[in-house]
């Protein structure tokens, strides 16, 4: 007679593993809504812009996560504004702002490269206006120019306000985010890459913001000071 105890042991381990995976899969989405940027390789950002074959630096995204699909409101006559990336600076040149539009949604990142940052998101109205909100009461009011060439607006964070202009940009410009938990530390970084190649970023280590190491926009790789690596991905709504 064969012993079946070892089989039960293996089976129990398998059940436990599957249970924990399902818990992770169901709870993971709610806690960090912004970090769930879906992979970029299917990003249809070329639908409106000049149809140039922008050298697409696709970040390697082998395992695609199903991003929470937003159902665009099926208004038969009106269309939401076209998808696109917008990157720019505040009028006082102290910080960068990047906004990505997709399917009627917008996600924005404000970053001064030192300590102040905010992730904001919301919907884009059919007339091209948007009111995005972030944590701690951060707000971004913006309006898309009629030719879809730029977004102009204001950002308000902790009772300070900045006006900004963000012209339309192409890959690899845009906003990137990397989140990871390594060595017991929670890492959360955001970067804005401008069309001229300059960039700013903030990397939070366990909630402590600091200037981020440089992001390689072609691969999304960030080499940390201690030799570790992060992979940042373009952020889409």
């Amino acid at each position, binding site marked *: 007679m*064969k*012993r*079946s*105890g*070892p*089989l039960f*042991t*293996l089976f*129990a*381990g398998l059940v*436990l*593993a599957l249970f*924990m*995976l399902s*818990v*992770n899969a169901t*709870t*993971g989405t709610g*806690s*960090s809504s912004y*970090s769930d940027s879906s*992979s970029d390789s299917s990003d249809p950002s070329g639908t409106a812009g000049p149809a140039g074959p922008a050298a697409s630096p696709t970040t390697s*995204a*082998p*395992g*695609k*996560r199903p991003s929470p699909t937003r159902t665009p409101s099926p208004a038969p006559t009106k269309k939401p504004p076209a998808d696109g990336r917008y990157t720019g600076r505040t009028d006082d040149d102290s910080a960068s702002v990047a906004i990505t539009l997709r399917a009627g949604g917008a996600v924005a990142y404000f970053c001064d490269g030192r300590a102040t940052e905010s992730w904001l998101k919301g919907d884009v109205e059919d007339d091209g206006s948007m009111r995005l909100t972030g944590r701690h009461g951060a707000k971004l009011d913006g309006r898309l120019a009629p030719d879809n060439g730029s977004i102009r607006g204001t950002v308000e964070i902790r009772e300070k306000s900045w006006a900004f202009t963000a012209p339309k940009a192409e890959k690899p410009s845009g906003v990137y985010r990397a*989140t*990871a*938990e*390594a*060595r*017991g*530390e*929670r*890492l959360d970084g955001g970067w804005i890459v401008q069309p001229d190649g300059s960039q700013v970023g903030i990397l939070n280590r366990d909630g402590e913001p600091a200037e981020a190491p440089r992001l390689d926009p072609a691969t999304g790789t960030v080499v940390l000071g201690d*030799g*570790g*690596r992060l992979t940042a991905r373009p952020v889409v709504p």
Partner: protein
Amino acid sequence: MTVDPNAPTQGGFPVPPGAGGPRRPHPARYLLPALVAAAVAVGLGAYGQVHDPEGTAFNLAGFSSTGAVKSWLGTTALGFALLQVVSALMVYGRLPGPSWSAALHRWSGRIAFLVAVPVAVHCLYALGYQTYSTRVLWHSFLGCFFFGAFSAKMLLLRSERLPGRLLPVVGGLVFAVLTVVWLTSALWFFRTFGVTR
């Protein structure tokens, strides 16, 4: 032949002494454990490699970070694994032990395994198979290897008339691998961040 509990083994610890006895009636019966072991190890590694690391996952109340949770769970698993070695020596008569040492061996092994599973799930789900340093490379590789070797050990237990040294050798291998996995993760974590963090 069945395992003779009083058969002399080399040394007090199951060191690989040229595995496999001289008689192996049906070599094919090693095939299933070996195949399952390879499938588990490669499957875990492939999942960790292909799957996008999520960065975060569950946490337990009372711990400062998932790193601390995993380190303590891993340390618990290693503690039960040490008990495994001791109780195995009792089963084989190398140490004086109570009559329930076999049950002790079975249940301490089950607990060690079930405690290690959540750690592996978190590793593979949140961090993935990584190679950015020697420590991390070995940890990733041996972590996957461990679960393959453990599966093989469990399946081998179902076979009868094994060569006398095979189970101690495989068991010792599983223990050795778990030890290295612990050294490259939990011990590193405690040394880097401290035990109390």
